[in-house]
């Protein structure tokens, strides 16, 4: 069966879609969509084919946009996407996750979680995060107090992990009513000596779920790369062998729980661009014990770009495609699990997010 691969790109000035066939060699770009609003996360629901785009406009506030025709037409809603009267208003949507049965979760700034039971037409606030005992101590990261990582447990409809900068990772086993911090073993280098492993307050940058192993997660943190094999209860460093401990995105393989892709940057106080200005995606095939730099086709001089926290993804094909977008508006594609790369778009606005959707042609 012929398949169409869509790369869903969220940028500072609208959403874009790149489209190819299963070979993933030739790509066509279309957009900008969503009236050029800043779009922090654009995702596809493989069960329905619906595309959701979450973001916010400085004038008009937060909204989730929907397309049922692969981007040809869009509508938007923010019905219910608001905190209680008198609270600091929701500024923008940062993360989206389609769940079973037409549910859609939305993470927002300032950090909070909403759920839609009608595919994004209306939302209900899950206020458990606001009730967490540590809530008053959460401090914003560089991009604000944002709920950017939203990971649904495919084997537990009530299980969800979130990553909040800079509050850390939290898990709910009851669909968002109550939460527990899941940060043991992750460092906070910016705290005083002796206080570097707090219960919460870590600057998590990205959390992803490994496929096929229920309790395995990976995390790119401001301070290191980590793996958890117990659903985030404890984390072990996997940064040895990488050029730095700093980066933003992480992308899991669609089938192999031991394969992970990262984009280490040169350091949080060193410019936050590619180490030595030479671009590389780093891949492990053994859960983080060993790392390989993947550079074929990526610029090896003057690469002063970054890759933001939601701007790398894989697809579901065999071999898996890997995709990342840069702060300088370039999109790179590998159709062979990172072995070779090509630049398929340039001069886009700053890329905030990259996701994929594979549909039957």
């Amino acid at each position, binding site marked *: 069966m012929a398949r169409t691969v869509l790369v869903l790109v969220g940028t500072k000035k609208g959403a874009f879609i790149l489209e190819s066939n299963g070979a993933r060699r030739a790509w066509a770009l279309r957009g900008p969509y969503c*009236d050029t609003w800043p779009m922090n996360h654009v995702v596809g629901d493989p069960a329905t084919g619906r595309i959701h785009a979450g973001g916010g406009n*400085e*004038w*008009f*506030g937060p*909204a989730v946009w929907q397309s049922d025709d692969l981007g040809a037409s869009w509508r*938007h*809603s*923010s*019905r219910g*996407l*608001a*905190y*209680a*009267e*008198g*609270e600091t*208003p*929701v500024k923008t949507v940062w993360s989206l996750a389609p769940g079973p049965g037409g549910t859609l979760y939305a993470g927002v700034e300032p950090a909070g979680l909403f759920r839609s039971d009608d595919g994004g037409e209306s939302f209900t606030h899950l206020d458990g995060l606001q009730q967490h005992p540590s809530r008053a101590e959460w401090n914003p990261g560089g991009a604000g107090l944002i709920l950017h990582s939203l990971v649904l447990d495919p084997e537990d409809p009530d299980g969800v992990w979130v990553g909040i900068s800079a509050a850390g990772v939290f898990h709910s086993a009851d669909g968002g009513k109550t939460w527990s911090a899941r940060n043991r073993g992750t460092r906070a280098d910016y705290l005083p000596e002796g206080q570097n492993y707090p219960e919460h307050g870590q600057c998590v940058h990205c959390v992803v779920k490994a496929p096929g192993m229920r309790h395995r997660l990976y995390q790119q943190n401001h301070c290191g790369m980590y793996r958890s094999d117990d659903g985030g209860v404890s984390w072990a460093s996997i940064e040895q062998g990488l050029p730095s401990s700093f980066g933003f995105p992480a992308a899991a393989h669609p089938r192999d729980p031991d394969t992970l892709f990262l984009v280490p940057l040169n350091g949080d106080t060193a410019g936050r661009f590619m180490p030595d200005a030479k671009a590389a995606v780093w891949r492990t095939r053994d859960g983080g014990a060993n790392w390989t730099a993947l550079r074929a086709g990526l610029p090896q001089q003057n690469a002063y770009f970054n890759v933001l926290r939601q701007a790398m993804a894989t697809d579901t094909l065999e071999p898996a495609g890997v995709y990342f977008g840069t702060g300088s508006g370039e999109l790179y594609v590998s159709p062979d699990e990172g072995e070779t790369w090509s630049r398929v778009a340039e001069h886009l606005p700053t890329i905030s997010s990259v996701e994929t959707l594979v549909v039957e042609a």
Partner: protein
Amino acid sequence: MPADPQSSPRAPVRVRLPAHLVRLFPDGETLVEVVAGDVRQLMDALEARWPGMRDRLCDERPAIRRHINVFVNGRRARLDTPLVPGADVFILTAISGG
């Protein structure tokens, strides 16, 4: 003596909406007349006509969004600003961007 439309309680106010707001709504119009006693009621009227428009202009404090300006007869208004019949209302987006 004919009634003065400016003093009639049923006289509408005239509202000008920014084009980049209107294009977010099917059948939106940049010039609309509504009956409202204050800006809050004006927002309610816009919401009734184009569901979702109030959320684009107001937040949950509740207040007019930070980068939206509402002018009533030339003066910057808040949600509780009264509207006299026949008032001219401009809803504008602030300078913002990059």
